[in-house]
C-alpha cells in the first residue's frame, strides 16, 4: 500500500492530464455546438463513474444485509446467477432490443453484475462491505454533483435553458437526493447499528430508481419533448477521447475510494482498540 499508492497516484495524474489534453486539443470540434460540447468529456465520464459507484454501493449493501441471514444469502446468490444467465441469453433472444442496446453489451453488463457481486462476496468481510458501501456512496455523490453542475453549464448555451425536467436529468437528481439522504442518515444516526439502517435505505433507493425513471419517462413523453440530442451516432475519434477520459476518471475515483476506505478502516480499528482497552483496564483509561 505504502508504495503502490503514490505510484498509482502519479499514474492517475498523468492519465488525467493526458485525457484533458485529448479532450481540449485532440478531439474534433463539434459542428453545431462548437467548443462547448467539450464539457461532454467531463460530464459523461462523471455520470458513468457515479452510477458505477452507486451500483457497487447497492451490491455491498445487499451483501451486508444477506450475510446476517444465511438462507437469504443463498437465495441472493441464485438470484444474481439467474440475472447473469437471463441477461446473457435475453440479449440474444429478445427482439427487437431497445434502441442503443446490443446483445453483447447486455450480456457484458449482466456478467459485470455477477462479477462485482461475487468479488465483493469473496474478498470483503462483514465490516468491510459496510465501509465499501459508505465510501462508494460518498465518492458517488461527489461525481453525481459534478454531473449535475456540468449538465446545466452545458445545457444553457446549447438548449438555451439551464434545466429541463427530462427523464435523465430528473432521475439523476432523484438519485443524488436519495444518496444525500443516505449520507445524512449515516451522519445523524445514533444507533449502534447504523450500517444496517443505511443498507436498508440503499436497497430502497435501488428499488426506487426504476420507478422514478418510468414515472418521469411517461410524465414527460406525454408533454412536448424539449430539444434533446438523443440518439444519433458519435464520431469514433470522439468516442476514443470519451473512453480515455472515462478510464482516467475511473482511476481517479478508485484512488479516492481506496484512500477513503483505508481511512475509515483505520478509524474503526482505532475506535475498536480504544474500546477494548477501556474494557480491559477500566481505571487506567480515564480520559
Amino acid at each position: 500500500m505504502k508504495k503502490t499508492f503514490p505510484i498509482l497516484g502519479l499514474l492517475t495524474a498523468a492519465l488525467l492530464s493526458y485525457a484533458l489534453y485529448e479532450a481540449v486539443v485532440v478531439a474534433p470540434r463539434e459542428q453545431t455546438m462548437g467548443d462547448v460540447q467539450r464539457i461532454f468529456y467531463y460530464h459523461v465520464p462523471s455520470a458513468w463513474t457515479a452510477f458505477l459507484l452507486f451500483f457497487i454501493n447497492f451490491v455491498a449493501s445487499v451483501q451486508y444485509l444477506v450475510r446476517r441471514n444465511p438462507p437469504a444469502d443463498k437465495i441472493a446468490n441464485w438470484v444474481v446467477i439467474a440475472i447473469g444467465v437471463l441477461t446473457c441469453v435475453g440479449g440474444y433472444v429478445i427482439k427487437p432490443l431497445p434502441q442503443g442496446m446490443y446483445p453483447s453489451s447486455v450480456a457484458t453488463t449482466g456478467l459485470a453484475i455477477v462479477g462485482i457481486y461475487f468479488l465483493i462476496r469473496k474478498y470483503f468481510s462483514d465490516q468491510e462491505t459496510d465501509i465499501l458501501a459508505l465510501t462508494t456512496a460518498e465518492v458517488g455523490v461527489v461525481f453525481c454533483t459534478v454531473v449535475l453542475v456540468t449538465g446545466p453549464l452545458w445545457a444553457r448555451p446549447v438548449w438555451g435553458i439551464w434545466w429541463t425536467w427530462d427523464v435523465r436529468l430528473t432521475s439523476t437528481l432523484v438519485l443524488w437526493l436519495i444518496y444525500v439522504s443516505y449520507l445524512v442518515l449515516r451522519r445523524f444516526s445514533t444507533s449502534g447499528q447504523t450500517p444496517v439502517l443505511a443498507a436498508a435505505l440503499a436497497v430502497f433507493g435501488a428499488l426506487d430508481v426504476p420507478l422514478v425513471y418510468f414515472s418521469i419517462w411517461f410524465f414527460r413523453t406525454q408533454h412536448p419533448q424539449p430539444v434533446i440530442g438523443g440518439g444519433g451516432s458519435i464520431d469514433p475519434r470522439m468516442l476514443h477521447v470519451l473512453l480515455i477520459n472515462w478510464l482516467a476518471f475511473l482511476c481517479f475515483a478508485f484512488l479516492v475510494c481506496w484512500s477513503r476506505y483505508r481511512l475509515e478502516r483505520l478509524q474503526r480499528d482505532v475506535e475498536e482498540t480504544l474500546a477494548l482497552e477501556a474494557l480491559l483496564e477500566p481505571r487506567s483509561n480515564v480520559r
Partner: protein
Amino acid sequence: MSAPAGITLVTLTKDIRLEWRSKDAINSMLFFALLVVVVFSFSFDPNAEESRLIAGGLIWVAFLFAAVVALNQTWARELRNQVLDAYRVSPAPANALFLAKAVGNFIFVAILEALMTPLFIMFYKLRALGPAWQLLPVAILGTWAIVVNGTFFAAMSLRTRSREIMLPLLLFPITLPALISLVEATTTILLGDPSTSAKFWIVLLATYDVVFTTGCLALFETVLHAE
C-alpha cells in the same frame, strides 16, 4: 385466527383506541392540512379553470406533509415505558407489528383525506371533468404508498438525532414516483381530457405499492432489531 393476525389486530385496536382518546395525530394533521389549504388558496387565488390544473399537486402535497406529522408520532409513542424494547424481546413476529402500524396510519390519513376533500372542493371550486370514481383507487393506492414507506422510515429514523427532520429527508426522495403518479392521475381526472387516461398512473401506483410493501416486510425485522 392465526397468531400474527391476532397480534396485528390487537396492536391496531390499541392504536385506534389511543388515538380515539387523545386525538393527537388527527388533530395536528387536520389543523396542519387546513393551514396549507388556506395559505395556498391565499397565495394563488385561482379561478375554477386554474385550480383544476394545480389542485392535484396542492392536495397531495398537503396530504403528504400532514401525513408526516402523524407518521412521526407512530413509533415515538412506543418509546415511552420501553414498549418497543418489550416488543423486540417478545417472540411476536415483527411484521405483524409493522402491518398494524401501517394500517393504523392508513386509517388516520384516510380520515384526514375524507375530512379535507370537501374543504378543498369548496375553496378551489373543484369539479372533475373526467371519471371522478377513479379518484377513489388513486387515493387508496396513493395513501398506502405514502403510509407504508412512511411507517418504515419512521422506524428507521427512530434512532437518529432530530428524528422529526429525518423522516421527511428519507421519505420524500423515495416517495417521488408515487407523488408524481398521484398528482398526474388526479390532474388527468380533474381535467377530463378524453385523449389521456389515468390508468397508467393507477397501474404505476399499484406497482409501487407492491414493490415497497414487499421491501418493507422483507426488511422491517432487520430494522426493528437494529439497536
